[in-house]
């Protein structure tokens, strides 16, 4: 059976509060990085603000001044989830240490959240990498229908950050995807990221940036497992996506993200017809099931197919059926309860969002997510009197009144905070509290021993070597070692460890002084 490596990068949101005032973000990040350097066994990254850890993961400061953790290369979805969880605990441990030893006056928290609701228009990414050997241009078209429709189980849930109302979405990240294919990662993002950066020799790396940080182990596990199988089928020449090409992938992404019923049909091409997201996922699954024991598939493919099918059966039964297992249905259930507590009917939201959208357009306000100025719109000086009058008559017919919309807009930030605090690391996070309460059903058997994964690399491939060498050399400050994904170098000692083969099982050291003297 074929082996395939995968990895996950998680960008963490970090906030510090002193009373109602935001603590200095740079100071917090400086402390965290310093503590990481001084308390974790590590080798310096090749960049100035990152390091590789003894479990072969990378922890670093990314653009936008946030902490990012990349798992080591993993050989199966169990390890991928295990090392994501190890990253969560590493960050949490650092924050607790910082609070205890350096900033006791600041309440610092760390979140697995995907979009910034403060109006910055920014996002925190969660990227996946899958190893493959394809060279051609077919991979995007095999992958895109899968990436668009998998959000029915991989969506983090939350709100559209560009809506002036309170628009629930299966995938808040989807609002930040503007193209079908793009090589950009900070602007103009695509469903398919075409960046070429293998970070090894002899293989390519599929880098997916339309995914999201999740809390449910099940959602993560099936996301990694199913996507691995789609990549394997594409690489084997089965063209798993050829029969389910979307007419407009971007439109389809918006449709799926905005449809908790998961029943809205998507426009297909070749031939023109309609299919739901669940049907498209079942198409991929059927193909994977038919080939799950083929030699190009990983050993664990049959188990992925079993769980993939169960998850699709579950989501096809409606959001309530998976409210204890997957992120977005869980959030949908919690938000509905909170809406009732705040005096509005969750089922009215779609209507009110449409009302706000009409009024926003009429007032020529940009779709930037800023709260809609309802009181101005309803005042005697309203710039849109005819529209307000028309809507007023409609409300009367429907037995609704403007007060419900006022309540929605007043509590909007509270809902954004709930979404953010859902993924807060540690016992104060909403997901963590539910998990501790025993009301969730998200765990996957075999994802255990997280504490071990914090200090130890996976047992296979170059990650095992990297972790062992980091542990061995971490104390050698004289050596001025620097570490990358594909090498470890000491200019001082003239030594280079070649890790360009991702499946290497031995330490392949080279003397760089020989080459340097030859070149000079």
């Amino acid at each position, binding site marked *: 059976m074929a082996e395939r490596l995968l990895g996950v990068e998680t960008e963490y949101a970090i906030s*510090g509060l002193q009373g109602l005032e*935001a603590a200095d973000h740079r100071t917090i990040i400086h402390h965290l990085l310093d503590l990481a350097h001084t308390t974790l066994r590590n080798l310096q990254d090749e960049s100035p603000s990152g390091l590789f850890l003894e479990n072969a993961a990378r922890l670093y400061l990314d653009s936008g001044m946030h902490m990012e953790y990349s798992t080591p290369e993993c050989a199966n979805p169990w390890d991928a989830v295990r090392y994501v969880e190890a990253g969560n605990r590493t960050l949490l441990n650092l924050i607790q240490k910082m609070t205890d030893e350096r900033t006791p006056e600041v309440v610092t928290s760390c979140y697995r959240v995907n979009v910034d609701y403060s109006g910055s228009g*920014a996002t925190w990414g969660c*990227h996946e990498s899958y190893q493959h050997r394809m060279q051609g241009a077919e991979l995007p078209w095999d992958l895109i229908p899968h990436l668009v429709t998998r959000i029915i189980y991989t969506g983090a849930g939350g709100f559209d950050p560009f809506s002036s109302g309170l628009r629930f979405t299966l995938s808040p990240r989807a609002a930040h995807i503007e193209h079908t294919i793009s090589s950009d990662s900070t602007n103009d993002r695509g469903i398919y990221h075409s960046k070429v950066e293998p970070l090894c020799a002899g293989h390519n790396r599929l880098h997916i940036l339309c995914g999201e940080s999740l809390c449910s182990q099940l959602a993560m596990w099936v996301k990694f497992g199913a996507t691995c199988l789609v990549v394997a089928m594409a690489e084997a020449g089965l063209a798993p996506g050829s029969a389910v090409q979307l007419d407009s992938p971007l439109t389809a992404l918006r449709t799926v993200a905005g449809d908790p019923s998961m029943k809205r049909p998507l426009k297909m091409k070749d031939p023109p017809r309609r299919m739901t997201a669940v049907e498209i996922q079942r198409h991929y699954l059927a193909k994977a099931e038919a080939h799950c024991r083929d030699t190009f598939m990983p050993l664990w493919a049959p188990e992925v197919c079993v*769980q993939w099918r169960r998850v699709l059966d579950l989501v096809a039964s409606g959001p309530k059926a998976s409210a204890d297992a997957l992120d977005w249905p869980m959030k949908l259930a919690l938000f509905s309860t909170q809406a009732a507590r705040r005096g509005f009917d969750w089922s009215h939201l779609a209507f009110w969002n449409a009302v706000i959208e009409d009024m926003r357009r009429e007032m020529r306000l940009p779709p930037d997510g800023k709260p809609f100025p309802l009181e101005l719109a309803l005042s005697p000086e309203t710039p849109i009197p005819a529209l307000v009058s028309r809507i007023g008559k409609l409300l009367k017919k429907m037995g609704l009144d403007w007060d419900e919309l006022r309540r929605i807009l007043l509590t909007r930030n509270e809902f954004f905070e709930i979404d953010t605090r859902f993924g807060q690391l540690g016992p104060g996070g909403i997901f963590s509290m539910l998990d501790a309460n025993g009301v969730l059903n998200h*765990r996957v058997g075999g994802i255990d021993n997280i504490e071990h994964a914090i200090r130890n690399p996976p047992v296979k491939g170059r990650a095992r070597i990297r972790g062992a060498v980091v542990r061995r050399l971490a104390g050698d400050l004289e050596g001025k070692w620097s570490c990358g994904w594909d090498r470890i170098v000491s200019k001082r000692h003239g030594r280079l460890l070649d890790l360009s083969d991702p499946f290497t099982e031995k330490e392949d050291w080279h003397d760089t002084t020989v080459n340097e003297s030859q070149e000079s």
Partner: protein
Amino acid sequence: MQFSERRNDPQLNQSSGDGDSGTDDRLLQARVQGDRLLAAGDEAIQRALAGSNSEAFLRAGRQQGGQ
């Protein structure tokens, strides 16, 4: 409970007829589980929001650009 051990899920094990006592039991169980989740969720939300000012909270976590 592990997901792989999920049993008695009414949505996954649809019964063919009305009045099936097994189905009734499963529906009842699902409703009880659903109610437990919502109650626990409500409690968790109120604990998470206690003493918080949402506007200040969101401002403190403002992101400056990510991927």
